[in-house]
């Protein structure tokens, strides 16, 4: 295991300690060592934004804590949903009295733990509503979209919800825009290698050299197909062929593209892939309004990429353009 760690069962705690120390201008710890928050949270009169999930996805989830982004995050073990207590504590750290939007991904553990946390928070009189991201197209057919996992599209949901809350939206409005963001988003991953959970000590799974796993999940959940590794142009075509018809995205649509590496794929390759995706979208008459290319939502050192495409309307465009200051996503307002 070629890793910079001390002890495999301490990776999450030590990572959090390092993260808090490295970013005092944005992040602060809380009484629960598995809950981090934006240093100014809860922000008076602002709806709180909470998320959470398993670790190993840096910059997700804690990297999206920040100004006009996420207020508090519940941190789980590697690839493991945080327990209800952490979600509950995160909700409490984020609530200013205006309520909390909990925006997370569709995994059975997270669903159960969030549900319990919401019950606990409701008992405290905190208004909490949730949006469950299910942008990962290959994880279930369109007829069972509620079974689909949440992947990198979650970032666009946080961005939209975070901006809306910062603009002064109330809980219903924040939930509505976060819901719209994820409903308008479709994602799909392609994996080129496995990754190693430190406590397990050996690769989770593997992708044979010369092959690729089409539709892979963020924890290495198997894809829809294992094929021969194809040139970037064909990979891009495959991704678009899955994503575009599903919403569907049509000629004339304006979209945000988020192309995230899964960990060890050099960013250079993401741009090569992006170059092909851009050609396909522009040939289809779809206009790219803004693109994010880089390691936005990873799976430890897995090789591969996730493409997420979100259809914009005026409200989403405004939210996407809004200033944001977090480790994972930082942008000036003026596009």
């Amino acid at each position, binding site marked *: 295991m070629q890793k910079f760690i001390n002890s495999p069962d301490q990776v999450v705690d030590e990572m959090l300690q390092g993260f808090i120390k490295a970013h005092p201008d944005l992040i602060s710890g809380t009484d629960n060592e598995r809950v981090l928050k934006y240093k100014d949270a809860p922000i008076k009169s602002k709806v709180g934004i909470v998320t959470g999930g398993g670790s190993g996805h840096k910059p997700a989830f804690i990297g999206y804590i920040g100004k006009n982004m996420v207020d508090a995050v519940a941190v789980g073990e590697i690839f493991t*949903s945080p327990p209800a207590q952490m979600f509950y504590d995160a909700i409490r750290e984020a609530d200013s009295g205006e309520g909390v939007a909990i925006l997370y991904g569709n995994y059975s553990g997270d669903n159960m733990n969030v549900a319990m946390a919401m019950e606990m928070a409701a008992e405290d009189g905190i208004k909490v509503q949730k949006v469950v991201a299910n942008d990962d197209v290959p994880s279930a057919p369109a007829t069972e979209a509620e079974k689909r996992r949440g992947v990198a599209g979650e970032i666009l949901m946080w961005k939209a919800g975070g901006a809306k809350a910062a603009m002064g939206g109330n809980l219903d409005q924040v939930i509505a825009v976060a819901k719209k963001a994820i409903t308008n988003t479709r994602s799909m991953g392609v994996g080129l290698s496995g990754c190693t959970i430190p406590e397990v000590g050996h690769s989770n799974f593997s992708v044979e050299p010369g092959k690729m796993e089409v539709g892979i999940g963020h924890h290495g959940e198997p894809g829809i197909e294992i094929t021969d590794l194809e040139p970037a142009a064909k990979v891009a075509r495959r991704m678009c062929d899955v994503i575009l018809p599903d919403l569907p995205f049509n000629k004339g649509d304006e979209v945000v593209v988020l192309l995230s590496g899964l960990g060890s794929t050099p960013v250079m390759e993401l741009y090569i892939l992006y170059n092909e995706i851009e050609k396909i979208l522009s040939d289809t008459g779809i206009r790219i309004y803004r693109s994010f290319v880089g390691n936005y939502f990873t799976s430890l050192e897995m090789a591969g990429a996730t493409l997420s495409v979100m259809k914009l309307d005026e409200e989403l465009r405004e939210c996407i353009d809004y200033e944001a200051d977090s480790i994972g996503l930082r942008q000036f307002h003026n596009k």
Partner: protein
Amino acid sequence: MKTFTNKEGSQIVDMLIRSIQENKQYLSDIDGEIGDGDHGINMNKGFTLCREALDKEPGDLSHSLNVLGRTLMMKIGGAMGPLYGSFFRAFSRSLEGKDNIGRDDIQAALSSSVEALQLISKAQVGDKTMMDVLLPAKEAMELAVQKDLPFESAVDLMAEAARTGRDSTVNMEARIGRSARLGERSKGVMDAGAASCCLILETMTAGVRELIK
């Protein structure tokens, strides 16, 4: 009909903790075949935390089960935390206030824990999960009570049903959890949650038998 005291009964939880700790690697290895290989790690973490809590604050069986359930639910996360958490908490609630625990108490507790679990998990028999162990075990126990079999036989039959259930997962195609999307490829391997669940029910059986010996 034989019984044991709630007080003595806490040793069942001691045995559960030991058996999970001893089977950490085994459970992770099974999970590694079609899951992410951490089931033993997750379970061991929870049960070991429970050990620490009980060392500080020991008590009777229902207390110990409550501490176990609470620890799993609040500290472990994943799907296992809430699932086993609800299970053990419901088990505890059902035994609460009872000085002596007999066959029917265990049966009632098992049934109510399974019901609690079903509130949060939609898994059915055949989905290749811990439910493939729990549901038949619960039914075997109910049947034994109906037939008015002795406590020993009742728990033996329960453990036997658990083992059969566990082994039945080998040929199933996973429909829930991490291995679900392996589809066909998930066949041929035992489900990790089924394995841990069977281990738990077998250990409970052994514990009961020792207590009523």
